[in-house]
């Protein structure tokens, strides 16, 4: 039996393998064939381990034939942003500096996906040190948007967005410090979640900002994300930020009714600076939530600009602390566009950094009271527009790139500073054929509710069923 993997979502594949309608080897062979064909077009992978993945698939089939019970992601091929460490394997972090550095530990999230039966097929392209929002990378080649390869996939989890959208894999982990899962998910037309701080362990993941780093899955459907989240979420003593909040079975919560749910629409900040395509997608998606029984409520958000600037300050200071040694000793091994924004972080006074950290609590309290005390979810754009072209956003032309990309972080970074969960969901296509998306932002640890709303929205709309013509 040949498998047309482009027809399958992650849950479809996992369920088909567990039910023995298809073997893990058949799925892996089809996956590798798809990667082989599409990789030259989008450059989503940094490394492809075809032999290792096929061996793992053979072992999986042997286990299944022995009558062993299969875990929820059994035999499913996945690939992740190249900053999740696996002991003995090189994690480049998208950089020249780490090009040959083998990891000494394995990320908790990878251990948990291994335990759930998933098989890694390779590592994915990303912005150098997760420090760019476009997908440009001089060291490993630019990653391209599968919907139109003249355009960027977004970043910094560029390979994750592109690989899932191009149907090279059905799911992928990315990291999100200020929008690095949600921006590429939005620009590539897939679902991506930034969990509540502490929900998913960052142990064994390259740090960018200790205070605001998170790890989250990207996939075509909210159901797929739910299955991955159930596998990876939960307390880990090796991550000091990890939370012991109980982990629900996210997939079991997907069918909850939205009747009576209050969906907030911002009357300031988030409704500004968006183009007509995004505005149209936002309006249409609000109508879908009304149809599903939700109450759409207007809400004013307290000065998110302040939270955004404070988040930027924390990010700059922490990134500079992490990179100080290399900035001094190996400055020429960085792309200039990555190094230059890090340098100011070296000179931020400690008092200002501490003030920015200290203000997270009070500003979060204010947001919880004034926004998420009035509504259950906040419905805001993921970005101001669909994906720009590679040329317009090229960091090698900084002024032009800032004009093109400068507004993107405004929609995501504030949420990161506050530590809240948010899921990006595709909600249509711009006139140029590229996807647009909205975010649902929730109260702490309400990922199940976010995925529930996203799932029911996807069932009504079907944007996720469209496929790029590659």
């Amino acid at each position, binding site marked *: 039996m040949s498998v047309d993997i482009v027809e399958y979502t992650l849950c479809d594949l996992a369920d088909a393998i567990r039910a023995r309608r298809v073997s893990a080897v058949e799925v892996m062979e089809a996956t590798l064939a798809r990667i082989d064909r599409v990789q030259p077009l989008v450059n989503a992978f940094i490394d492809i381990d075809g032999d290792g993945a096929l061996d793992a698939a053979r072992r999986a089939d042997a286990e299944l034939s022995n009558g062993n019970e299969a875990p929820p992601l059994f035999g499913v091929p996945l690939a992740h942003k190249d900053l999740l460490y696996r002991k003995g394997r090189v994690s480049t972090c998208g950089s020249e500096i780490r090009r040959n550095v083998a990891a000494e530990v394995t990320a908790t999230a990878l251990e948990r996906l291994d335990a759930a039966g998933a098989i890694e097929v390779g590592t994915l392209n990303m912005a150098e040190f997760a420090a760019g929002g476009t997908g440009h990378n001089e060291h490993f080649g630019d990653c391209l948007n599968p919907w139109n390869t003249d355009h960027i996939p977004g970043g910094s989890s560029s390979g994750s967005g592109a690989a899932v959208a191009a149907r090279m894999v059905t799911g992928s982990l990315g990291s999100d410090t200020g929008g690095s899962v949600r921006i590429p998910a939005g620009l590539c037309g897939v679902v991506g979640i930034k969990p509540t701080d502490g929900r998913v362990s960052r142990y064994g993941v390259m740090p960018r900002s200790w205070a605001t780093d998170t790890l989250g899955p990207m996939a075509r459907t909210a159901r797929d994300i739910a299955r991955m989240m159930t596998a990876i979420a939960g307390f880990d003593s090796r991550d000091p930020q990890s939370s012991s909040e109980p982990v629900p079975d996210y997939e079991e919560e997907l069918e909850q009714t939205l009747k009576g749910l209050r969906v907030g629409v911002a009357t300031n900040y988030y409704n500004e600076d968006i183009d007509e395509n995004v505005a149209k997608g936002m309006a249409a998606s609000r109508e879908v939530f009304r149809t599903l029984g939700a109450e759409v409520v207007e809400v004013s958000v307290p000065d998110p600009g302040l939270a955004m600037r404070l988040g930027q*300050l924390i990010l700059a200071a922490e990134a500079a602390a992490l990179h100080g040694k290399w900035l001094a000793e190996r400055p020429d091994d960085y792309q200039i566009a990555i190094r230059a924004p890090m340098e100011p972080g070296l*000179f*931020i006074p400690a008092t*200002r950094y501490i003030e920015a950290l200290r203000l997270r*609590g009070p500003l979060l309290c204010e947001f919880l009271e004034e926004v998420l005390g009035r509504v259950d979810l906040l419905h805001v754009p993921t970005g101001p527009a669909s994906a720009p072209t590679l040329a317009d956003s090229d960091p090698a032309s900084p002024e032009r790139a800032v004009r093109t990309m400068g507004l993107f972080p405004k929609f995501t970074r504030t949420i990161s500073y506050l530590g809240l969960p948010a899921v990006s969901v595709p909600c249509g296509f711009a006139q140029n054929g590229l996807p647009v998306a909205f975010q649902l932002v929730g109260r702490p640890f309400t990922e199940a509710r976010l995925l529930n709303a996203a799932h029911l929205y996807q069932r009504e709309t079907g944007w996720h069923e469209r496929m790029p013509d590659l």
Partner: protein
Amino acid sequence: MGCSGETIRAMAREIYGIELTEDRAAEIARQVTELAESARRAGRESDFDDELLSARQTLIGATQDGRGS
């Protein structure tokens, strides 16, 4: 209340062993001043006891007072 390019250049050399051009140091000084200013202004408006309320405590606390899951 900003810092000067000259100060940045000296700090870069003395603390980090990094050589910056005058232009680059001036640009960094401008960016540092801009970044630090928002924290300074917001910090002055916060309460003396605010440091007792960390973001982590607030996130976890929100699940226990009905604002969370």
